[in-house]
């Protein structure tokens, strides 16, 4: 075997601490190395040409490049090798920059290490086998999980590109948190006015199949070939028959039996309801836990009034299965609850703010509902306890966010802006009111964002106080807010009528469970992890699964929409070809030696391993062995390490190659 070794200086990045010519010289003397050379920029055109020329002239079979991380230029060098007629998997990269020159100061030690790293790569490449890419077919349908603004945008973009979309929303209506908002920063345009046209578009789009009141319960398969199982919860109303007249709702005798979660529990609703007037689809849901029929088998008022006969008390949850090519996860967020929850010790709650026992200490979404024209107070700012108009209002930022002691260290990003908006809306509606905002830092990075905050201060006379609030307690119907203005260095106390807490954005309750269902990684809070924080922000590390919106980290509306469009674009790229080329790093079983213990099958995270029968001459099965579906295998190699008889090998990282690397140390 003739091996070529190419050592890159990376300008000065490598050669400053690694003696590149010496590395090349030493390596040239190794058995099997036909040619070794160093050059200033191997990744440049002349550098690549050097590799191509050397392969042709010296008749090289394999090459080793000592350069930056394989995560940077492996593809470049593989392509160069391919163009000179070498199989791309006979190219090995020795990481001389990130793992050597940049992290060591001593030239001698770094050079020695570089030599060893190249030697390891040489030994590995000697045992590398040529591999060819694997082709798998692609199902041209996208599953979007979550019908908030991100999910809506992703579904519309994908559908408009001509692909089928299945949009799954767990609530009875799409719209998400955006449908609850009053007005949006920094333009103060009405949230529902800009959102509802999109919701209707989704409903009417021929390419979108909308599944509300539904949840994804199972995802199987792999990129291009997922199989999703979706549970459609029983609405107890036949969607085909219902006209959306709403008569059942107005006639339902359980007028105020349940808290209205759309109104953030500031109002009530009957057992049969639609979340809000513009709901899409405009089909009510019967809440079993409240409905009289399910309590005592009586009532049935809705059945009497429904002239279409759409009420169906016997309706059951149904399971739907869909073939899917790509998945966009857009499950969004929820708000931190300051109440102490015994079940979840991850978040501690705020005892100093009363653990939620004060009715007039509310969170941001509740204030959105109070300020919203469609809300429980019809847009008038009234406090929940006695309906009085608050003359003094205190907003507190960073409640839950940036608070390690309560379990969250991150910044929720949107609170600075929406608190400014809240204060502004308040001042616009209560002209003689006083608005105070306790903040730690104002993070108003974004187009017109800083200007927006200044407008609140300069035009609307909102008082910003830098400092965290230590305590809130009630005294004679007022809420005493104890803080410190750390700029003035003075303690301050405000007797407020209403306190609004900008509580942290946290992932949806079941986000970790959903992540496990889909098979994507998540962080310690339950936010889904992107594949690369900078270069692959809308992809999960699982191929074919993309992320949009606040399920990945706190996001505002423009960012969620941008992410959604980006994710949709990524998904359509995937779907645009009929087959999919995959890296051939997959495991393969030696069926002759397999003992059939199927530990590999148990450990395989992708279900890629199947049982294969081996029959004797009479056609009787005398042995069962493992068989790996190459289309499903993702190449983690967990099976290879688990296999006791060492009958599985991972292509590209087989044991012989790794032993050679160890031996070369």
């Amino acid at each position, binding site marked *: 075997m003739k091996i070529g070794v190419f050592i890159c200086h990376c300008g000065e990045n490598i050669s400053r601490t690694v003696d590149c010519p010496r590395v090349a010289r030493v390596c040239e003397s190794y058995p099997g190395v036909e040619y070794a050379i160093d050059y200033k920029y191997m990744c440049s055109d002349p550098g690549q040409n050097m590799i191509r020329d050397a392969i042709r002239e010296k008749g090289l079979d394999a090459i080793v490049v000592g350069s930056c991380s394989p995560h940077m230029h492996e593809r470049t060098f593989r392509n160069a090798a391919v163009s000179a007629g070498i199989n791309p998997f006979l190219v090995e990269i020795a990481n001389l920059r990130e793992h050597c020159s940049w992290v060591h100061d001593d030239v001698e030690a770094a050079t020695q290490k570089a030599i060893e790293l190249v030697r390891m790569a040489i030994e590995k490449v000697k045992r590398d086998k040529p591999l060819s890419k694997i082709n798998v077919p692609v199902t041209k349908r996208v599953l979007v999980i979550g019908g908030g603004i991100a999910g809506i945008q992703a579904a519309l973009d994908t559908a408009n590109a001509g692909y089928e979309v299945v949009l799954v929303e767990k609530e009875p209506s799409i719209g998400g948190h955006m449908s609850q908002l009053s007005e949006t920063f920094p333009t103060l345009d009405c949230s529902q006015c800009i959102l509802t046209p999109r919701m209707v578009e989704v409903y009417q789009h021929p390419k979108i199949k909308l599944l509300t009141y539904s949840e994804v319960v199972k995802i199987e398969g792999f990129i291009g070939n997922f199989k999703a199982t979706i549970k459609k919860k029983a609405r107890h109303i036949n969607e085909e028959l219902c006209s959306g007249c709403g008569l059942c709702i107005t006639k339902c005798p359980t007028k105020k039996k349940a808290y209205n979660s759309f109104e953030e529990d500031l109002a009530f609703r009957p057992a049969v309801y639609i979340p809000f007037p513009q709901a899409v689809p405009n089909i009510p849901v019967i809440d079993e836990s409240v409905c009289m029929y399910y309590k005592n088998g009586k009532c049935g008022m809705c059945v009497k009034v429904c002239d279409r006969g759409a009420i169906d008390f016997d309706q059951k949850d149904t399971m739907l299965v869909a073939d899917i090519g790509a998945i966009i996860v857009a499950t969004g967020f929820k708000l931190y609850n300051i109440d*102490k929850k015994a079940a979840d010790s991850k978040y501690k709650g*705020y*005892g*100093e703010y*009363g*653990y939620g026992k004060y009715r007039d200490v509310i969170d941001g979404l509740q204030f959105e509902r109070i300020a919203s024209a469609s809300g429980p107070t019809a847009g008038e700012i009234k406090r929940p306890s006695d309906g009085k108009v608050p003359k003094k209002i205190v907003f507190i930022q960073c409640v839950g966010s940036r608070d390690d002691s309560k379990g969250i260290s991150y910044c929720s990003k949107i609170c600075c802006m929406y608190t400014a908006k809240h204060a502004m809306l308040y001042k616009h509606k209560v002209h003689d009111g006083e608005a105070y905002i306790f903040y730690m830092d104002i993070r108003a990075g974004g187009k017109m964002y800083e200007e927006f905050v200044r407008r609140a201060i300069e035009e609307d006379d909102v008082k910003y106080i830098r400092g965290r609030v230590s305590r809130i*307690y*009630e*005294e004679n119907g007022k809420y*005493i807010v104890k803080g410190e203005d750390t700029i003035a260095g003075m303690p301050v106390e405000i007797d407020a009528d209403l306190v609004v807490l900008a509580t942290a954005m946290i992932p949806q309750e079941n986000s970790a469970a959903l992540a496990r269902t889909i098979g994507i990684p998540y962080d310690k809070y339950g936010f889904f992890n992107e594949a690369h924080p900078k270069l692959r922000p809308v992809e999960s590390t699982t191929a074919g699964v993309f992320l949009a919106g606040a399920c990945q980290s706190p996001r505002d509306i423009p960012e969620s929409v941008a992410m959604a469009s980006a994710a949709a674009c990524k998904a359509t790229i995937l779907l645009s070809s009929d087959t999919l080329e995959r890296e051939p790093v997959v495991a393969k079983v030696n069926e002759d030696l397999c003992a059939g213990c199927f530990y590999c099958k148990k450990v395989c995270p992708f279900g890629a391993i199947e049982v294969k029968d081996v029959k004797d001459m009479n056609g009787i099965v005398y042995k069962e062995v493992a068989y790996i579906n190459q289309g499903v295998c993702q190449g983690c190699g967990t099976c290879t390490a688990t296999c006791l008889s060492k009958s599985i090998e991972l292509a590209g990282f087989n044991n012989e190659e790794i032993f050679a690397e160890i031996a070369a140390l």
Partner: protein
Amino acid sequence: MTSMEEVIMKYGYYPGCSQTGSAKEYDISLRKVIEKLGASFDEINDWSCCGATSAHVTNHKLSSALAMRNIMLAGQQGLENMVAPCAACYNRLVTSQYEISKHPELREETEELLSAKFQKEINVINILELFLKIGINKIIENRKRELSELKVACYYGCLLVRPAAITKFDDAEQPVSMEKIVESTGAKTVDWNYKVECCGAAHSIARRDIVVDLSKKILEDARSHGANVIAVACPMCHTNLDMRQRAMKRTYPGHEELPVLYLTELIGLALGMNEHELGIDLHYINYKYTDPVPDNTVA
């Protein structure tokens, strides 16, 4: 294996210096109540001061050594648990033990100072934990009368429930355990805002002005929420809230007295003991519980 719920009736006892002087009545009433409830104390032999605030504000090693001396004594005495009725002592003992177990370097230094090895952890409990362990039912069973006339503001002060990570007891902001105990005497409790606010503690002598201000605020909040008595579980809180009412009258003319009782005294009253037995007459604010006049209108 004995079950975890088994009621322990024998406890190590670390009185603390105040109990031998200004808080004599706390000691007296505690011992009497415990006896009535059928539990007993095993006092730490030759215990010394925990170092109190003065040690930990001036020398952390001294503070650790003084507190640990008593923990080790309890260990030598073969005790598993130890009651420290004074909230300040309790806090010093628990915190010192916690820090020693967390930081080996401090442990070494302390062991060197004491010329002894720290061998076993002692479960140091405060007065509230003690009554919860003995069981509220025990109080109800032995109750001779219901203190139904009392509206009690339960005052925890700072050191009983903080820091939550170390004491691991109740809630640091909205504690409820003392209310549970007080309610077992038949008294009512009030929900008020200052139950964990500080009374000024160690500044009692050197900065009386601060203590008077802070204590006044506490008393007024309790009163405004309808309390007719304050229950405390710490000699320092008692000194500041009770004795400083004299100075309060001078600083705030028109100050109305509000009786301040130790938790143990309240329980003692419910168990049928009189004010003199419990040492309530040693307080600055004289207090005598009067049973409600029987309501004749109810036929």
